[in-house]
């Protein structure tokens, strides 16, 4: 076989037709990719409105029409030639791409695998051009009366590529992909009016000239914005704007992470990394909801990594990473070091990284992205999640509800420090549900608190703080308790025994794999010794996998200990519950437990009203 291939006369230059089909394999993966390419072309053509219609999940028809610049007859014919583009002129341009497309592959690729029609007219021309292509072969090019702009119709996609057609999924699946593409484009270009019609039914009609915030509302609905905080920060050349969900608003997998680099939906390893670092540790499978726009000079980013341009590369990876971490940290009031080390005092103020020289420390919105803030420049009016932004107003505390307190709850004002990031301005404990969850009433909604996760968070921060101050008080036990660990656990604990002891656990080796516990940090309360040591040893195993602060050992020990200690009785008295809620509000990161599970779930009254159909 190999020999036969090496014989002369077997290597031939592929015809343009075949080359296009191959390129189509890369660019046109499925109907949704056609939608993406055509919409991007429309936007690059300066369209103010783009209307998309699909039938049968895009297999029968994909039609995209815009009111953009249109093309003359020659340009129109040129556009279906491979590597023909209006977007690049010379090789230098590829270093500073500011259009969405540039490769000159999209139209010829699509045209080579479909029955393709292009109708276009420049506004200044009297008549337009209509071109028909069948499986990559030009059938007809004629003058036609068409509205200004460009309309592309793609019928019977992959009709000549049976292999690819076989791999298409059910109509619904393809349609879901199209919707996802549409959503991304709609978010990336809020100023462009977009509509999507599927099988004659209009799914979206998004108005032209919207702000990002309006666009988010139109695409996801009112409720999506609850729990999101506006992000707006510039560091040097890099602007990060958009919205970031609070750490208790998480989803499985990355379904609701929308990241745009220079308005192009994009991923990059560094973005995923920065998002992980910007948030407190979340439960393994959970991902925060983010809608981020990263804008930077075109020569700082290489979009020519992937034919579908899904992945980008940054020239200054570290700067991008730091910009994202700082921007999100500022939005959600969290910074890794600040949250975990015991530096008392400022949190939000300190949380932003030092701004680059010449840039004001808090540049709220960046011109590259349309108004992040609401009409009056007030962000919190639109984002009703009670939180830090609201605090300045709290100088005049909101009066307690006028109605008399219900018999189950006492008034409870939780606003001790104006600087603090308390998740609510005031709240009132309504009671305990299922003998477990605490229900709180706040300004904008009700909050369900998991007392166990809350206790873990509270204990964790206290323990870390006490350790940082070197002031751990260890309560001695009446009878030292001996615990025998599994050999592997025992070895790990032995290696880190010094740290454990420093944190107020009087644990000593007691021969073999036995350990003897003589005293425990007083603030942990009653904690089962065996579970405690097992947790610590077990968690030390996975340590180091995650690059962290220099106190990572202490963090692990504290997390493991608090996990064991928080397991105690869940039924709380009124007084205990109020203490816990107050203590939680005072923590640096009240929204998650140290392991990343949410401590509270917020439900806005607006959502309730919607559900009750009011």
């Amino acid at each position, binding site marked *: 076989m190999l020999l036969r291939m090496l014989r002369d006369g077997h290597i031939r230059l592929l015809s343009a037709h075949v080359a296009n089909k191959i390129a189509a394999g890369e660019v046109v993966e499925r109907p949704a990719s056609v939608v993406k390419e055509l919409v991007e072309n429309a936007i690059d053509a300066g369209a103010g409105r783009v209307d998309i219609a699909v039938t049968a999940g895009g297999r029968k028809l994909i039609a995209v029409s815009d009111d953009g610049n249109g093309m003359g007859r020659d340009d129109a014919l040129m556009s279906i030639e491979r590597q023909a583009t209006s977007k690049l002129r010379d090789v230098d341009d590829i270093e500073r791409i500011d259009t969405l497309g540039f490769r000159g592959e999209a139209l010829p690729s699509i045209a080579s695998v479909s029955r393709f029609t292009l109708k276009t007219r420049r506004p200044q021309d009297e008549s337009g051009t209509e071109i028909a292509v069948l499986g990559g072969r030009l059938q007809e090019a004629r003058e036609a009366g068409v509205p200004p702009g460009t309309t592309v119709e793609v019928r019977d996609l992959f009709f000549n590529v049976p292999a690819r057609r076989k791999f298409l999924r059910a109509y619904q699946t393809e349609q879901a992909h199209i919707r996802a593409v549409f959503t991304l484009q709609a978010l990336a270009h809020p100023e462009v009016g977009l509509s999507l019609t599927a099988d004659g039914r209009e799914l979206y009609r998004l108005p032209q000239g919207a702000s990002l915030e309006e666009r988010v509302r139109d695409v996801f609905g009112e409720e999506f914005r609850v729990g999101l905080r506006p992000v707006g920060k510039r560091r040097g050349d890099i602007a990060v704007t958009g919205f970031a969900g609070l750490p208790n608003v998480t989803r499985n997998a990355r379904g609701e992470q929308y990241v745009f680099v220079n308005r192009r939906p994009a991923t990059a390893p560094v973005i995923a990394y920065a998002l992980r670092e910007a948030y407190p540790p979340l439960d393994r499978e959970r991902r925060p909801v983010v809608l981020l726009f990263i804008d930077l000079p075109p020569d700082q980013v290489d979009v020519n990594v992937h034919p579908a341009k899904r992945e980008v590369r940054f020239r200054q990876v570290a700067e991008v990473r730091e910009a994202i971490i700082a921007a999100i940290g500022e939005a959600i009031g969290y910074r890794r070091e600040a949250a975990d080390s015991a530096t008392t005092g400022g949190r939000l103020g300190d949380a932003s990284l030092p701004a680059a020289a010449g840039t004001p420390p808090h540049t709220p919105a960046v011109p590259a992205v349309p108004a992040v803030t609401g009409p009056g420049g007030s962000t919190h009016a639109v984002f009703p999640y009670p939180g830090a932004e609201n605090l300045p107003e709290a100088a005049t505390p909101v009066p307690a509800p006028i109605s008399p307190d219900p018999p189950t709850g006492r008034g409870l004002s939780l606003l001790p420090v104006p600087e603090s990031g308390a998740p609510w301005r005031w709240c009132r404990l309504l009671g305990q549900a299922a003998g477990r969850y605490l229900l709180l009433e706040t300004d904008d909604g009700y909050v369900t608190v998991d007392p166990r996760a809350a206790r873990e968070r509270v204990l964790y921060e206290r323990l870390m703080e006490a350790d940082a101050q070197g002031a751990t008080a260890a309560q001695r036990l009446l*009878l030292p308790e001996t615990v025998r660990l599994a050999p592997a656990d025992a070895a790990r604990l032995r290696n880190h025994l010094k740290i454990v002891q420093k944190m107020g656990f009087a644990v000593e080796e007691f021969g073999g794999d036995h350990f003897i516990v003589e005293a425990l940090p*007083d603030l942990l309360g009653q904690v089962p010794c065996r579970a405690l040591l097992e947790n610590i040893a077990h968690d030390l195993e996975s340590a180091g996998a995650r690059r962290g602060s220099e106190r990572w050992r202490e963090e692990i020990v504290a997390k493991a200990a608090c996990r064991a200690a928080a397991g*105690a009785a869940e039924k709380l008295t009124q007084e205990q519950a109020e*203490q816990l809620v107050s203590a939680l509000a005072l923590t640096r990161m009240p929204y998650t437990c140290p392991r990343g599970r949410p401590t509270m779930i917020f439900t806005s009254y607006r959502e309730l009203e919607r559900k009750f159909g009011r």
Partner: protein
Amino acid sequence: MKFSIPRASFFEGLQKVQNVASNKGSLMILQNALLHAEEGRLCITTTDLDISERCYVECEIDNPGSTTLPVRRLAGIIRELDEGRILFETDDEDVTVLQGGSSFFKIIGLSTRDFPPVPIAEGKFSYSIDQGVFREMLRKTCYAVSQDETRRVLNGVLMAFKDGKLTMVATDGRRLSLVEQEIEFPAEAEIEMILPVKAVSELMRVLGSEGDLKIYSQKNQAIFEFGDIMISSKLIDGVYPNYRQVIPASSEERVVVGRSALLSALRRVSVVTTDKSNSTKLTFSANQLVINSNTPDVGEGRDTVPIKYAGKEISIVFNPEYLMDPLKNIDDDEVFIELNDGHSPALIKCSVPFIYVLMPLRIN
């Protein structure tokens, strides 16, 4: 079943037992009280399967029988009725008609067949003690019971009938409270029982201040009979740790201090303790005790209490809650604190046979 009963005593009986019946839960029958009229008495029983409670109320019976009714609803009705006698009649379908004054109620009950069996007050051995004394013993010990659910045996109060004494002990591994009372029982009746904390609180709620209390021991179960009430409770299975070994055999120093003066000083000073830093330092010197709490970022509190003491100066740090607990639950004017040094366990004693062992905090 048909009987008539004075409203007041019926309500009193229901109030005594309704605490045990569950509020919610999957078993409907546990929300009900078993009512059984026989031989001039109405017997009202509730149970949550761990604890059962029964009381007797005198009534005039026309027709003996039994039924079960939702106890909280029944108590709610009886509470609101006018003073006087209530006529109570149940048909074969467990539908009960209540009439009192101008009121008429019809309540649907459940069959007695489904009501769990409740133990009867009998046992191989029984022990006799005054109700008030027993309740005091519970009060002096039960606050030290452990909340740590992984150590089941510590989630109750130990009652040891041994050497002609009833010894009660509770501990959470950090402090231990112990109280003793001499009572009479045959040597072969020596036994240890661990009474769950839930039964302890129910007993403390219902026990009177005087009158005889009889305790019966059965397998995994203890039964308390007093006045017209009977409470039975499952026991915690297991062996209580050897508490004797944590009580220091001797102490070098002994301090005499006024109980209420010490308690109020601790209360005052602990205002500046927080959950973050819950430690209070006690410095004993000649006839003076200085109590000191210092919390970074919060402040400092200091108080001085006169004591009778002539020994060496000792500084020792405690969790103030642990120190206040026994002081709140004993009534003596003076208490004795026995110490060796700043890092050994301290003892608190009073005139009755009561011992409280408390481990100090160790500050890094």
